């Protein structure tokens, strides 16, 4: 049992297989779709959806390391996302549109995110757990204020528009001839950069939660007092978990900036992004890492494709009182909110938890 050497797939997945056949299938389908997205779903819009899914998988998974594995409810996660995005945005806007600026900006964003996460972690040493969530909310809004006020640096409310390195420009051509009818331009390069980075980061997080360190995080979630009695300095672990999650979120933010060639407070810092992440993690299944990945797919797809469906429904309900307003495409969050509440009540382990429970 424990002595056998794990195979290559197990090593890649850090020994944490999804667990059920249906789940394996879903995840394989997701992986294949994302891998071949430019060819399966040609078009700017589809590619943007696929890229957003990749980025939000990283973001939601990194939040799960905090919420699901360690049991810490923080509302400052978008702040770290924003730090990475602003790092790249500012570097590209103020310096040059080169890879050096991208790396410098991402590194600065990650460093800032880690530093702030460590400070928040150390503060949590002194306060009650209840306060912690509230404090993170306040800190996140402070960051939002800073981003809108430091206009010279961040572009304020308007944000920053910038150029990316040449190979990522839409006008760039990788090959003169289309492949499978798809022209390999800078958009495709950008997509594969994001896809590869997201896949690597996801596998890294899978490794982290299945490492000795990750097991201690679960121990802290289960019984912090006992974890201390075993000799684990839980503050150190909580702080490190926060710092790792913050670094991952910042990297996701850097990818977001490269994708959009723009960054502003609404895209990466607003509370609605935080709400999205929360929905992804909880609906997908806390503490499973695969769950948040599925949750990210559900949420991003809903954002893009539920709205047109709702618009059609809303139109067909014209004449009824209130109903058209409830099914207005802008109200999609209402229905996801309801779904969220129902999941917390009835399937606290989310989609993945439910699937695993059925199988096991």
């Amino acid at each position, binding site marked *: 049992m424990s002595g056998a050497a794990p195979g290559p797939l197990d090593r890649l997945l850090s020994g944490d297989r999804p667990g059920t056949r249906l789940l394996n299938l879903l995840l394989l389908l997701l992986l294949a779709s994302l891998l071949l997205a430019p060819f399966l779903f040609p078009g700017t819009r589809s590619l943007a959806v696929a890229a957003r899914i990749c980025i939000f998988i990283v973001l939601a998974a990194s939040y799960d390391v905090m919420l699901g594995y360690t049991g810490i409810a923080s509302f400052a996660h978008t702040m770290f996302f924003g730090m990475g995005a602003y790092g790249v945005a500012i570097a590209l806007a103020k310096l040059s549109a080169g890879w050096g600026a991208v790396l410098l900006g991402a590194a600065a964003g990650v460093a800032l995110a880690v530093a702030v996460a460590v400070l928040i972690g150390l503060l949590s040493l002194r306060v009650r757990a209840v306060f912690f969530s509230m404090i993170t909310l306040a800190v996140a809004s402070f960051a939002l204020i800073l981003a809108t006020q430091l206009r010279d640096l961040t572009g304020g409310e308007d944000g920053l528009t910038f150029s990316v390195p040449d190979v990522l420009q839409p006008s760039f051509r990788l090959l003169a001839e289309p492949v499978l009818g798809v022209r390999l331009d800078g958009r495709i390069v950008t997509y594969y950069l994001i896809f590869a980075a997201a896949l690597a980061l996801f596998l890294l997080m899978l490794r982290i939660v299945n490492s000795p360190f990750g097991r201690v995080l679960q121990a802290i979630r289960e019984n912090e007092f006992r974890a201390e009695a075993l000799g684990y300095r839980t503050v150190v672990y909580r702080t490190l978990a926060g710092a790792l999650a913050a670094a991952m979120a910042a990297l996701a933010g850097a990818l977001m900036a490269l994708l959009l060639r723009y960054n502003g407070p609404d895209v990466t810092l607003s509370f609605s992004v935080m709400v999205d992440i*929360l929905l992804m993690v*909880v609906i997908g299944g806390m503490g499973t890492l695969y769950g948040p990945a599925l949750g990210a797919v559900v949420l991003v797809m809903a954002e893009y494709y539920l709205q047109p469906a709702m618009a059609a429904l809303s139109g067909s309900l014209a004449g009824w009182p209130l109903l058209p307003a409830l099914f207005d495409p802008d109200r999609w*969050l209402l229905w996801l909110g309801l779904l969220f509440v129902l999941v917390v009540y009835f399937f606290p382990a989310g989609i993945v938890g439910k699937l695993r429970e059925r199988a096991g």
Partner: protein
Amino acid sequence: MSAELLRRNASDWGAYALLPLIALATLPAMSFSTWLTLTVAGFAMGMMLFLMAAGLTLIFGLMQVFTFAHGAFITLGAYLAVSVLGALAGWSNADSWALNLAALAAALLAALMASGAAGYVFERVIIRRVYGAPLRQILITVGGLIIAEQLVVAVWGANPLPLPKPAAFRGSFILAGAAIETYRLIAVALGLVVYAALHLLLNRTRVGLLVRAGVENLEMVEALGYRIRRLFIGVFVTGTALAGLGGVMWALYQELVTRSIGSEMTILIFIILIIGGLGSIGGCFTAAILVGLVTNYVGFLAPKLALGSTIVLMMAVLLWRPRGLFPVGAE
């Protein structure tokens, strides 16, 4: 609170001294009339914040429920004010103190009732199932907040709505060379009335005695024969009704209602609860005024830093006293 008073040791005076100290420290930075204007404005803002935060501090303290949905009731109150004052535009714009006041009273009453009723439903449907599970409380109330905000938008639309004050409260008058807005005095008066009422309720009535006892030890209150769930509902409804009341006052103060009015205030309210200490009405009152004053002083001296300054204040208080200025209950 009387019991608190007797227990209070010398170090608590440090917490009380904070208010006058901050007020006086800013005086040299500005003219007296400016200072007076800002101080009155700070008090007025503090009172409105107190209305919104008072209920939440009791809900936290008594029920140990960590709700992030309080802002939804503020939003509800604010939008009701738009509807009621819109319907009573004749009264609101009339050149008569009495009619203006009646319009305001009608809006306040409507908000009080509607937010209270919504709070009742919220407690029965959502909160009741998650007693004793903090993480689920946080998640479920965030979900409730999302739904509530969306419903408000479905009813009143997504665009910000203007909300003019009733005619008589629009102007200001000069006191000791300082311009004082009439409306701010109304806010201060209402805040003081609510504070006094809560204070009397908590310290002079059996229900108040039960609430204070329940904050300390719920199980024992039940073992003495009291049905605590009713008390919970009562406190929750009172808290949400007050949030609605505060929502009306704040919306009129801003003269503009946006869908995010509640969630914006939630952050300030959390800051107040953290500074004041959970479960203490007196602490909440002091912290609310503190936040109001700091926001106004800093807003004048360095406008960009106003909200940031309260967050910095909160951090400073936490480093000084990790449980807030006036903590209640055994840890």
